């Protein structure tokens, strides 16, 4: 009995020591400037504090749900761009590629009566073909991606212009595809999914933790692993609970409750691409090519194929993003995707922590950055200011959000890493 107690106590003491060590190391990393996505999250929190103090409506669940829907398409676009940016390339045509793909989806449904998922597949295929063309030109001919994608940015605008006609628009009224941004996940299903995510995360991280211990490799203290699981569970289940309430502005007349469908789609893409980037050979090779293409080539990696793949992924994700944008406005028109979307999406990825010079970036960066970018017009829209003020404030806020990040990174680079 006493021995068991002693053993438990010993385990406990060791655990405390491990945790303390981990804490010191984390503080050291923070001091050294290695902050991960913390700065972008800090920027987001700052924006939330400012806007909610300026307008009561900002922090309502209704507006938060709006924000999620508004952020959806930019998050997806930025996530696709991360792949291209990882290789130190750029894709200026992603926005219009999304517009062109959405046009094709709409036409397939309207003119040919295709069912939504078939039309969506066609749109994805169109995106993939665009990416294939860009990737081939960039990788095989070696034309700088800036120029290739500038050319595609122009040429792809011809597609909806020709198919829809100048000034026209196509209605986007498929039950499912339109529902993506105006319908919500049934409350029960939402709860089930949320719980599945929490359980899945817990299972995976505990399993990998145990393997590391078993193999005698460096590992985090168990309590930290548990802490993380608790944190994730709180956030996911808390948000689910909030969004399961009826949030309609006039709740008696209309019932809006449940997680907007956009959210699970974005989360699924985020999980999928995070898996690909961190746990597969393909992802590892992407980072290698982005870090040092020559080293990757010498290691037998086909730089050509990686580049093409990155552009294909980017344009396909752009197609999904275009679909989401169309779902939000309920239509596709020739100008779709031709505005500042692309610059905003690249900005989102960069604010999230992706480097334009390649080799550094994660899928979650795009989502955090996309939320920052989407929060700005969301908050400003509530404040009802003259356009020139909106321009000024948008610029200023963008700068602010980026500088939190930059200052931390500068400290890291001063530390020589």
């Amino acid at each position, binding site marked *: 009995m006493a021995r068991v107690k002693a053993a438990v106590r010993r385990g406990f003491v060791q655990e405390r020591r491990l945790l303390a060590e981990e804490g010191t190391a984390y503080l050291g990393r923070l001091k050294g400037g290695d902050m991960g996505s913390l700065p972008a999250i800090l920027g987001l929190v700052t924006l939330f504090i400012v806007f909610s103090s300026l307008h009561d409506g900002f922090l309502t669940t209704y507006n938060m749900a709006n924000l999620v829907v508004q952020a959806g398409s930019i998050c997806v676009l930025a996530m696709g761009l991360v792949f291209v940016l990882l290789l130190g390339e750029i894709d200026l045509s992603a926005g219009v590629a999304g517009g062109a793909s959405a046009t094709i989806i709409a036409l397939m449904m309207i003119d040919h009566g295709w069912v939504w998922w078939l039309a969506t597949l066609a749109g994805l295929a169109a995106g993939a073909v665009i990416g294939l063309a860009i990737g081939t030109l960039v990788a095989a001919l070696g034309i700088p991606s800036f120029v290739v994608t500038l050319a595609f940015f122009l040429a792809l605008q011809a597609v909806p212009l020709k198919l829809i006609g100048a000034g026209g628009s196509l209605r986007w009224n498929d039950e499912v595809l339109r529902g993506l941004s105006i319908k919500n996940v049934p409350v029960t299903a939402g709860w089930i999914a949320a719980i599945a995510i929490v359980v899945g995360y817990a299972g995976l991280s505990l399993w990998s933790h145990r393997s590391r211990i078993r193999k005698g490799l460096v590992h985090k203290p168990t309590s930290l692993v548990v802490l993380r699981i608790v944190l994730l569970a709180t956030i996911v289940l808390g948000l689910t609970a909030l969004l399961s309430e009826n949030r309609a502005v006039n709740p008696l007349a209309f019932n809006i409750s449940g997680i907007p469908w956009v959210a699970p789609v974005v989360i699924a893409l985020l999980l999928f691409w995070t898996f690909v980037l961190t746990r597969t050979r393909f992802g590892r090779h992407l980072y290698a090519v982005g870090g040092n293409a020559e080293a990757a080539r010498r290691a037998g990696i086909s730089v050509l194929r990686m580049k093409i793949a990155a552009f294909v992924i980017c344009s396909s994700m752009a197609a999904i993003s275009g679909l989401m944008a169309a779902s939000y406005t309920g239509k596709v028109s020739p100008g779709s995707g031709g505005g500042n979307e692309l610059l905003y999406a690249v900005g989102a990825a960069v604010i999230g922590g992706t480097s334009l010079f390649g080799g550094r970036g994660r899928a979650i960066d795009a989502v955090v950055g996309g939320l920052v970018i989407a929060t700005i017009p969301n908050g400003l829209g509530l404040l009802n200011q003259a356009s020139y003020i909106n321009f000024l404030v948008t610029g200023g806020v963008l700068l602010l959000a980026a500088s939190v990040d930059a200052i931390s990174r500068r400290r890291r680079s001063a530390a020589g*890493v």
Partner: protein
Amino acid sequence: MSEIPAYPGSVPDPAPLLQLRGVNKSFGVVHVLHDVDFAVYPGQVTALVGDNGAGKSTLVKVIAGIYGRDSGDYLFDGAPVNVHGPRDVSALGIEVVYQDLALCDNLDIVDNMFLGRELRNGITLDDLTMEEKARETLASLSVRTVKSVRQSVASLSGGQRQTVAIAKAVLWNSRIVLLDEPTAALGVAQTRQVLDLVRRLADRGLGVVLISHNMNDVLEVADRITALYLGRVAADVPAESVSHSQIVELITAGRSGDLGIRDVASATI
């Protein structure tokens, strides 16, 4: 590693594993390699020596498939092969440590060591096994100052980077290993380990090519010596048959006694 039966070290000239014949290579107007013949024999250490700018690294990169040849033959196991890039060459079982290392600075030590040949469980990476193997290999090379194998290679010292590059090349069951100045940045103990490793690899039957400017090291481990002078092969001889000063003469002047290039004066780049 040592259980594999050792190859008899001094069998005189078995059939060459790899052979280049009459290779020429120019960069624009600079003609770097002139009709170079070069051979690697199994179970032997071939030292490739030459002055700075003689063309040693260029020759290695031609063998590695990094550079194409302007002319000349590439034979492996006696048969001509087509190599179009580093991929083809590593498929032949040739591993290379480059002089300019070429590591991915954004990846950590383990990732770099397994780059292009990651171990997998199904489709997911088997990071645990890779980490274990990397640690073992580094330990065998006398590396003591590396804090963690999960450190980014950007933060390593010159010698530590060099060791990672070497470890990367010897991790695989290859048939030929080319080492371009592998000990240049290494400390005393680490250099010892690498020289021992070179000998051990040859004894296991691999063909090893060692480039070095340190003649003591060369004479210690090499079975054959190939000297380059201004992109031409000045000599290709058994190591026992030449002395320290003869090699130095071949390197710096292209001739030594009856060894060397006939018409030294007319040789230009």
